[in-house]
């Protein structure tokens, strides 16, 4: 197990380095710190002094990779690459443009993000699997046909529409729930309910369709014929044999996104005013705060790799063929 963990870690490092190098190139090589300073200061205030001052304030007044002013180890560490990119491996993200500590901000915002993302994940999985199983149970009937058409229609509707329509009718017109905002503690449910509902409904179309095709593929397999030849009832075949086999791809597919739940959802959080990481990202993009974007890219990559790792574990847990060999 230890060896496995170490191997995973070893595989992850080059990928994180690659991610880092890529973002570094985007942010510091394609456009120099001078360009950024110009943009941030706006056309009116561009004087060489202002640019230099902006760079110093934000720590961009260093060479990119190699600082010839130093001779010791500092020649490598006192550079933009080291300070802005490599330090992220130690989860040191520095400060945002508004001066706030990014790591601290991320810590406080992860909670609200999870409050939305976790219920959406669990509820969505349950709802989609149930609908898919129902459609498979009634396969070759009009009910299944209707379900398929409905799923395609639902997945053809823009996610923005679900949110805007949901907010308009449920919150604005009928006043069932608050339109946006967030509270901590037990009161949170009033603010969480609507975004969760809307996100789940928005995901039903594609989710159901996907799971249905997984179950249908399983139902065509030989072992299902064997189960029928044993005289088992259709519902037992579906719930014992097909569900259990179908859950392997479903679970492993779902587990990848599990760590990314921390990142929250961009649209939902921003529309409902949830102070999570999703809205943090949107605000950062709109304010062109590159430090935050860089930090979130790095965290996203780490979480993705954790997701791959969890997928491996889930696979070996769910599939005896992997678990025991």
């Amino acid at each position, binding site marked *: 197990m230890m060896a496995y963990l170490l*191997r995973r870690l070893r595989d992850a490092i080059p990928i994180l380095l690659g991610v880092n190098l890529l973002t570094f190139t985007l942010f510091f090589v394609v456009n120099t710190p001078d360009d950024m300073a110009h943009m941030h200061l706006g056309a009116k205030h561009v004087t060489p002094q202002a640019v230099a001052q902006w760079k110093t304030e934000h720590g961009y007044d260093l060479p990119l990779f190699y600082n010839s002013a130093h001779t010791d180890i500092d020649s490598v560490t006192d550079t933009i690459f080291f300070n802005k990119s490599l330090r992220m491996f130690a989860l040191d993200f520095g400060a945002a443009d508004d001066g706030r500590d990014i790591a601290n901000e991320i810590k406080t915002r992860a909670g609200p993000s999870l409050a939305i993302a976790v219920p959406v994940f669990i509820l969505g999985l349950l709802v989609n699997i149930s609908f898919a199983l129902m459609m498979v149970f009634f396969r*070759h009937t009009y009910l299944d046909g209707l379900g398929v058409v409905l799923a395609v229609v639902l997945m053809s509707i823009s996610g923005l529409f679900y949110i805007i329509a949901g907010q308009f009718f449920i919150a604005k017109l009928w006043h069932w729930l608050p339109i946006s905002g967030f509270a901590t503690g037990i009161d949170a449910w009033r603010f969480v309910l609507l975004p969760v509902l809307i996100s789940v409904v928005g995901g039903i179309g594609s989710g159901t369709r996907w799971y249905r095709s997984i179950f249908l593929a399983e139902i065509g*397999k*030989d*072992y299902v*014929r*064997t*189960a*029928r*030849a*044993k*005289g*088992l*009832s259709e519902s037992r075949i579906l719930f*014992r*044999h097909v569900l*259990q*086999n179908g859950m*392997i791809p479903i679970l492993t597919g779902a587990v990848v996104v599990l760590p990314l739940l921390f990142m929250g959802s961009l649209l939902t959080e921003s529309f409902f005013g949830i102070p999570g990481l999703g809205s943090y990202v949107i605000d950062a993009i709109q304010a062109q705060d590159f430090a935050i974007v860089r930090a979130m890219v790095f965290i996203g990559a780490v979480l993705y790799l954790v997701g791959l790792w969890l997928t491996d574990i889930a696979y070996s847990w*769910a*599939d*005896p*063929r992997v678990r*025991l*060999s």
Partner: protein
Amino acid sequence: MSVLSVEQLHTRLGKLHLVDGVSLHINAGETFALLGESGCGKSMTALSIMRLLPEVAHISSGQVMLQGEDILQLPESAMRKVRGGKIGMIFQEPMTSLNPVLTVGEQITETLRRHTDTPTKTHHQQAADLLSAVGIPDAVRRLGDYPFQLSGGMKQRVMIAMTLAGNPEVLIADEPTTALDVTIQAQVLRLLREIQQQRGMAMLLITHDLGVVSEMAHQVGVMYAGELVEVAPRDAFFTQPAHPYSQKLFAALPQRNLNKLANITGSVPALDTVFVGCRFASRCDSAFALCHERPPEWTTLGQGHRARCHLLAQAQSVTVTLTPALNTVAAIGSEAVLVVDDLRVHYPLKRVWLSSHTPMLKAVDGVSFSLHGAETLALVGESGCGKTTIGKAILQLQHATAGRVLLDGVDLAALTPRALRQQRAYMQMIFQDPYSSLNPHLRVQVILTEGMQALGMKVDMADLRYLLAQVGLPDDALTRYPHEFSGGQRQRIAIARALAVRPKLIICDEPTSALDVSVQAQIINLLKDLQIKLKVSYLFITHNLPVADYLAHRIAVMYLGRIVEIGRNDEIMQHAAHPYTLALLAAVPSLTRGQGDVRLLSNEIASAAHPPTGCHFHPRCPQAMAICRQQYPRMTQISPTHFVHCHLLSPQ
């Protein structure tokens, strides 16, 4: 009184007549073998009886009487009690027919729970007893195993145990041993026979293999194009098959057959054909006008022996005319075309990072032989013995770990890529599966000329037509695509492709094992004729001893990456020395031996990844001695052409 009787069963799929008026009767304790080639409707008959047809197919008329009750009329819920309870079924593919994520025990107790009234507490013990009954050692522990942990033969035993759990009165076995190796097939067939006798079950056995029929059946039904053409008691069928199709099937079988194998020209008609006369008429040598006008009725020939044939109705006997084998056997050249010297192919089992010790799979482990001009050497062995890897390594499609391959004295591994390119014209390959060996997107002409162009040969249309004529295909085949041809015709295209570059050596990798018996005979005859005409040498890789015997001059028997015995075909077939060769020969279902008992190998084939110490074969060998466990036997010469690796035959 028959336990199961089927009357005038018709099954349709759209326009297709999958089963067309089949009637059969099976008594308790009796085996009815349904014999036929692929697509003749035998499996569909079985699935119709179980009412397990694919959702698009349906039974249009007929009766299936089980102990006097028509089960086609039962509501689905009552039918579920019949399935697994009164009728059990075993399928062809043990690999996919068991649920991969449930343990063996769960899958057996599920049937027990469904079909017996015994308390649930006892089910575990009952399941273990069932496993013991089907010959699985250490049954209690095996209950916790998942199917993937068992070998193919073991899985089929589990399938049988699962079927027995419902205590059925009728057992339907659909090609139960087709996917298994011949030594394992013999074990499973014996098990089925014993169980049937113990329990007095009626068995419907579906097979394409005359040998299996001979060993298992009491009654035989021959199916062709959706209908039964002959029904007979076993002995009558094997002494005097009546229908021309049945006779041809026998004549097409290479079983120490001295005659040329009978060609059944053409292939099985499409299922949507509307038949006017006899369904076999277009392929029948004895067909006359009436055969094309009116479908023949049943003619009774003896006690329980009936056939549908106009000739028989007119009290004429049918005899298939056989051509004696050509005497002009190609003279074997004196020079060795191919010399394989201590060839080894080892794969790393998994990539271990920064580790010097990688476990290796020794697929081929020190194989040496030579092959002369116009000679055929058959490489015989069960799955996983490395025979296909040898073929690929000779062609340099697979990197050899060690050893030499000399083609006409040239060491192929030592050549530069450019020099190897020139040698490629001299050696070619024919593959097992005629469907995956031809690119579906290319016309036959492109398929044939691709190699010639790659090797810088001139392409001449006249040559191509001659090539097609040689393998028995019409000229217009050139502009067509592979999917327009049947399996046998595709194999002919593959042969033509190999011949196009005029090779001296063709490696035939199981070229007939995916084909029906009648088509197999066509291909074998073709290969034999071509050898006589073109003086080409074959390395014929096969698991089928009778085919090897018929076609080859010499036979090499392989076990776990090594040749254990090599000799002339008569030396191997009649005077085999190695216990493994003897066991292989004994395991081949025989038409003549009948249902007598022979000594079978008890164990499973070991894995090449972890070969046993000493002689690889010792765990399965009935005559194993102490030394066999310690030391691999050296080669012993029995005759100038006959060599064997076995301690029993070592001089000391």
